[in-house]
């Protein structure tokens, strides 16, 4: 173990690289950008490997994501539920609760969104929409409350519990659409179409742009105001950042955790409602392609900030509509979208870990 080299030589494996990583890691903006740049670069390289022209591919993606009003509408429509699950993730994370259950809460929200249409008379007309969104929020919120209750009273590990509850929710939806909620004479595992009154109205004629996008943006604004401009938000942040201090000052920890998970679940639930009432108009088995997990990634990449999340959610929406265009125009395998969404998460986790190593994390997980 004894070494005879000088201290200067020691730890100089590649000073240039170290310095660069350190510089990127010192600035959150740069780190996030670097994570995105890294993943975009990697994906383009992958495209080249697949025999596609990366420049053309990039152009196709941009065109598919933002090239026309319809493309922008698609991007926004993909963004809306993801933004809502991101807000859900960040509300819980800010309170120190690692909620990986956004997917399950979204599924339950989707169930909640069609319940009023199923059980209430269609004559309620436009009244059905607020009722549906409310019921989605309620069901999602209750689903989110379960892991919080289990953690507070049984000491259950929220990571495992929320993960398991995702699967339970997915199979629950599967069961509902193949049994109780399936209308007779249906060809496929899905619920009946909701009446017009329960649909989120299209706000840009000729496109899919529906009012759910506004709902999501309003939710982002609300969460922002809640976090930074209310006493509740201040307590929530304190509880998440320094549970010991919160205990000393006798902040109502249980109430904070429960309410933040109720809110978190409700937001994810509304995400499910937005997808069901704005896009599908019915509950379909497998309607969500990991929207909940996307939300978690967005929240982290957005610096656990509501407005940052809007920007990153927009990026995820653009990737979704862009890779669709890529698929249909250049027949690029669909799996590329997953690779592109996953890379910034890993890159950012590494950058943040490196900062932690140097004592300055981007976000602090207070687990």
């Amino acid at each position, binding site marked *: *173990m*004894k*070494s*005879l*080299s*000088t*201290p200067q030589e*020691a*730890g100089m494996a590649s000073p240039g690289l170290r310095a660069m990583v350190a510089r990127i890691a010192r600035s959150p903006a740069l780190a996030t950008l670097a994570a995105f740049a890294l993943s975009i670069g990697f994906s383009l390289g992958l495209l080249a490997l697949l025999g596609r022209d990366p420049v053309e591919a990039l152009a196709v993606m941009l065109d598919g994501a933002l090239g026309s009003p319809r493309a922008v509408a698609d991007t926004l429509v993909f963004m809306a539920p993801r933004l809502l699950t991101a807000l859900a993730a960040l509300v819980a994370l800010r309170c120190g609760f690692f909620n990986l259950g956004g997917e399950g809460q979204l599924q339950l929200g989707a169930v909640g969104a069609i319940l009023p249409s199923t059980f209430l008379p269609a004559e309620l007309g436009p009244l059905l929409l607020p009722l549906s969104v409310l019921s989605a929020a309620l069901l999602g919120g209750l689903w989110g409350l379960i892991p919080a209750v289990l953690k507070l009273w049984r000491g259950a590990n929220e990571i495992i519990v929320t993960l398991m509850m995702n699967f339970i929710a997915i199979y629950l939806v599967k069961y509902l659409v193949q049994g109780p909620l399936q209308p007779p004479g249906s060809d496929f595992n899905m619920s009946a179409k909701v009446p017009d009154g329960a649909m989120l109205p299209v706000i840009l004629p000729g496109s899919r742009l529906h009012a759910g996008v506004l709902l999501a943006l309003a939710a982002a604004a609300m969460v922002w105001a809640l976090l930074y*401009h*209310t*006493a*509740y*938000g*201040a*307590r929530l*942040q*304190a509880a998440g*950042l*320094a549970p*010991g*201090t919160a*205990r*000393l*000052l*006798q*902040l109502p920890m249980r109430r904070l955790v429960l309410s933040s998970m109720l809110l978190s679940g409700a937001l994810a639930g509304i995400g499910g409602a937005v997808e069901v009432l704005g896009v599908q108009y019915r509950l379909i088995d497998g309607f969500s392609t990991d929207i909940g997990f996307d939300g978690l990634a967005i929240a982290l990449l957005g610096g656990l900030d509501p407005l940052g999340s809007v920007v990153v959610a927009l990026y995820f929406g653009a990737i979704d509509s862009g890779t669709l265009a890529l698929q249909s125009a250049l027949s690029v395998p669909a799996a590329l979208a997953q690779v592109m969404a996953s890379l910034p998460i890993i890159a950012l986790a590494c950058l943040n870990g490196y900062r932690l190593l140097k*004592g300055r994390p981007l976000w*602090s997980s207070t687990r």
Partner: protein
Amino acid sequence: MDPDALLRLTGVSKSFVPGHPVLENVSMSFRRGELHAVLGENGAGKSTMLNIVFGLHQPDEGGLLLDGRQVIHRSPSDAIANGIGMVHQHFKLVPSFTAGENLRLAATPAARRRLSRDADIGRLAESFGLPIPIDIPVAQLPLALQQRVEIVKALVNEAALILFDEPTTILGPEEIAGFYAVLRRLAADGRGIVVVTHHLAEVLDHADRVTVIRHGRLVSSGPVAGRSRADLVRDIVGRSLELEPLAAGQGRADGDVVARLEKVSLAPRPSSAGLRDVSLELRRGEVVGVAGVEGNGQRELFDVVAGLVSPERGTVTWMSGAADPSAPERVAAPGLVPEDRHREGLVLDLPVSLNLLLDRIGEPAFSTPAGRLRHADIASHARSMCAEADVRTHSVEQTPRTLSGGNQQKIVLARALAGDSLMVVVHQPTRGLDFAASEEVLRRLRAAAGEGRAVLVISSHLDELLRISDRIVVIYGGRIVGQLSAPVDRERLGVLMTGDEREAVPA
């Protein structure tokens, strides 16, 4: 140059934040057979220096010479292989492991053969004169015994140089003498012993040589013989110093009772004694000190008096006294200064303004009935609190993470004293603070009593307790074993703090 040196530091510099060196060009040496004390204020760089020697940190400049050869300690394993052992302030023991497992884990391959059976380990520890129980998880041992495990760990690896980081804070005055006797014996066998400490008396009584570090720079290093207390203090603080009298014993013992504990008990836990039938009265205008060796129930006492934990048996009563005749039944929550200000006192990443007002953020002055924050009012109120408490920030929007320890503690103290509470409970109020900040904290606590509050100071720092308290109670094994009024007899206090040694150390 020191020809007898076992280990020499040559021009060591280290900074964690660029431009803020923790150590600057420090050169010094440790010798065989010698007890070497290192003195300095908190944050002077003593621990960093030890950590560099032990391979926990790497120097930015300079290096180490072991027996004249350049060595690099990239990790503790390098240091251990080079015959260096360290007893950390916060013990580096795997809490769920037994002493036997901990020793086997830490043993070098050469030493491992002697440790294959628990009985061998027990015998080996006894041969060093340091018997330890080897088959129960170390977390369940008293701190003094955990320390012993740490020392045996270094001895098992045949360390030629053993570093101790503040080893006596967990020992009672009686135990300290015994502890130095052990160190003396280890040195006599030809080992080098380094002790980082705050306590000048220990240094003058036991050390051979002393080194003083101030603000990361070496101030003096040489034999203890011929040094005086005042002389060392000047080296440590940078000026000669007369401690301001804090008027201990000036408080009134006849003020209204603000809080009363009656036969309060909490079950003991691993590494803590719990509380046993503790009765205590706190009165307005009086500073009560709680003396004791760490881990004897201080934490539980803090929690119970603060109202954070309900006692399992016994009662705690808080009384409003005559403070608020309009609402005599209302009892304001006590102002609290916890032991660990980073984890329990502050929210390091929220602005100073919120930190100051977090417990009152819901009051009408700071948020609307609908819960919206009145940012302007919060900021102006926070600014006035900062001014009053001498918290030095550029703005109240700054986060405490960017402030010095002293400023951080002032924020916690300002919040504790801001309310109309009649009682302030503080735990280790000056830990980690430099001299001036410590004096300021003690002065404010004394002033709080002068204003008519009841002040409870729980501390393991005897000097500060003696200076500030009107009355000192001694806690040992979760029990109040004695009560002394100012002026307090230091020796008597020491005897009480050690309790009944046969009961405490089941060795």
